[in-house]
């Protein structure tokens, strides 16, 4: 009788552990799927006009780049011409 009870507890615990593993696996897989999603580059303003400047003045402008996608965006290269 005692052995039967012990076996039943072991089975119940094993089922709980299995369910926990399935749950954790599901969470990890959805997280992984998100990371592997597609990046989407967006630049709202692509043209900038500096105010009139004198020779020797610093001319610098920063463009904002957004990633509207679900994956990490990698900027491979920015090539001036």
């Amino acid at each position, binding site marked *: 009788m005692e052995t039967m009870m012990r076996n039943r507890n072991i089975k119940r615990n094993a089922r709980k552990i299995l369910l926990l593993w399935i749950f954790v696996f599901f969470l990890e897989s959805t997280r992984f799927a998100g990371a592997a999603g597609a990046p989407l580059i967006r630049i709202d303003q692509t043209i900038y006009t*500096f105010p009139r*400047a*004198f*020779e020797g003045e610093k001319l*610098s402008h920063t463009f904002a780049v957004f990633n509207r996608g679900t994956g990490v*965006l990698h900027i491979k290269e*920015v*090539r001036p011409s």
Partner: protein
Amino acid sequence: VVRYDRIIPPGGKGSITLEVNSRTVRGKFEKKAMIWSDDASQMSIAVYVRGEVQPNVELTPGGYLSLWGTIGKTIKAHVDITNNHKEPMRITRVWHDMASHVKWKLTPIHPGYAYRLTVTDQSRSPAEYIGHLWLETDLPQEPELTIIVSGTVHAEAGK
């Protein structure tokens, strides 16, 4: 010069900075930069910066003077110097490396803003020379101006 964030997380914001050396451009300009990313739907995007760079001081017709003529006749040329800043500019010193070939005269047209530099040949014999004339100013942005001078002086006909 270009600086940029290489990795931008989903939903995140990064930046791309473009710098233009205003010493290497004159007048109106447009610079383009191509951005290459791993976005399969749009692998490259072009961004542009535009502007206009004005010289601190203008030399008209340019930074080069040619003295050409015959001994005994007046051989001279001039360059107009215009200060484009609001603050006045003084020319504090003028010197050259052409020994006894030339003399110069600086005339204020609009003191602080416009001057005329006249260079006259005073060679006593036929000569060919090339040299520099320097002007020192009190304008911090343009403390020194250089004018190249070339001279070709012939003997009088029949001599």
